[in-house]
């Protein structure tokens, strides 16, 4: 830590994203952490960086982030989008009227629409699953067919981060922390106990923010009563592996 001037603090502030991502070298990290001790301001920046990362991942999972076009194509596409949107609105309105549905403007409930989520969002349930589960026979997730949510979001913490060369270590060569997901893609399958039939399989997905997975099971109430294995598999071009297994129970009552 050379000096405690404002310029040095600014220099460290620029390193915040790399620090949170674990991309600093050993010496850079030592310097940065000495600054963290000295500067509550820098600590607040780090906290916000983590919140920002988590918030973006969460907003993306919820479908709240619009992936805009690149700046060069924005102006070009805008007219088409406006035209398409106007046509769609017109078509839907005509369809609504012809089917005799109440006009949206006459329905007080529809006047208070929420900006980002459809109304059934309260029927969604998010479950975070730890990487290590107990050996007890109690299920990790349980619900009855009647109280099943419309959507079950499963977020297993199973992505192991490795060093660039694929090795698993607490600290990689050069002092960096591991940051490469062990597998580029993961999938989740639901296998019924007893007959080992496959009840559901997710699309494969790459971890968001390096280690976050989120699988959406729609209408879990439609599952038959019984116990299911929730199996998370990691996939690479050469290899696949079951990286975690959980127990889900669907009860009749």
């Amino acid at each position, binding site marked *: 830590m050379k000096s405690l001037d404002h310029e040095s603090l600014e220099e460290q502030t620029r390193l915040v*994203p790399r620090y949170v991502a674990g991309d600093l070298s050993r010496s850079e990290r*030592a310097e940065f*952490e*000495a600054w963290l001790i000295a500067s509550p301001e820098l600590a*607040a920046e780090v906290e916000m960086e983590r919140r920002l990362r988590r*918030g*973006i991942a969460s907003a993306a999972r919820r479908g709240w982030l619009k992936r*805009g076009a690149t700046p060069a194509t924005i102006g070009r596409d805008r007219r088409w989008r406006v035209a398409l949107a106007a046509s769609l609105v017109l078509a839907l309105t005509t369809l609504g009227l012809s089917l005799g549905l109440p006009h949206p403007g006459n329905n007080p409930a529809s006047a208070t629409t929420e900006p980002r989520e459809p109304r059934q969002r309260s029927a969604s349930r998010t479950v975070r699953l730890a990487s*290590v589960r*107990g050996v007890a026979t109690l299920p990790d997730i349980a619900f009855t067919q009647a109280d099943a949510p419309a959507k079950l979001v499963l977020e297993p913490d199973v992505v192991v981060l490795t060093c660039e060369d694929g090795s698993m270590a607490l600290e990689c060569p050069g002092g960096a922390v591991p940051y490469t997901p062990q597998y580029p893609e993961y999938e989740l399958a639901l296998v019924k106990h007893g007959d080992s039939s496959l009840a559901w399989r997710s699309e494969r997905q790459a971890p968001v923010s390096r280690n976050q997975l989120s699988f959406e099971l729609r209408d879990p109430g439609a599952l038959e009563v019984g116990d299911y294995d929730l199996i998370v598999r990691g996939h690479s071009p050469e290899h696949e592996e079951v990286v975690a297994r959980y127990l889900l129970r669907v009860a009749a009552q």
Partner: protein
Amino acid sequence: MSSVSVEEIERIVAAALSGDPQAETRMLVALRPGVLAVLRFGAFNRWIDPEDLTQETLHIVVERVRARTIDDPRKVFAFAAATARNLALNAARKMLRQQTVVDSGLIDELAQNLEMEQGELSDSDDRQLAQAVADLIDELPTERDRQVIIRFYLDAADKHELCRELGLSPKHFDRVLMRARSRLRTIIERRAPHLALFPRITAILFPLALSFTFWVRHFGPW
């Protein structure tokens, strides 16, 4: 969040190094958020209890300050950071060794601990945070800034490639990120202040208790 500046903390530590007992207490209060930050944000955060190790770190730091083997406040900062890091590494090693033991009770305990660690934010907090970030991105002045945030954080795009593609200088890129963090802080302080960084009551009480214990042990005959 404490509003103590870097210069003020440096002055406090310098006074503690000169043997001022009141400054020592103030030093513990001032260093605590930083030590906690190193432990919470550091490489081994998921395997440790940051509160516990903060206590241990400050204990070692104050012993060292009392021993007068450090003469420069900046060295105290570096020493505190290195101590916190080493304690975290040791705790992580211990934890990982334990994970290989086939002991159902222990595994259950580990599972619970990991669950607690993950549950740092409740569902409702997570939703509020996601909403705050989505609003923040909507509010960004240009589509280019939105692209910077989304592609850097969500797609893990390389900073230099992104700069080249969007015609940005690295400094401008850093400014976009800094402004985003600052704006996010404003939004969450307004809507969900508990998600911002706040000193807990223990942040005040613990250093006072630690300092008191030291003074009694070293200088206070009962």
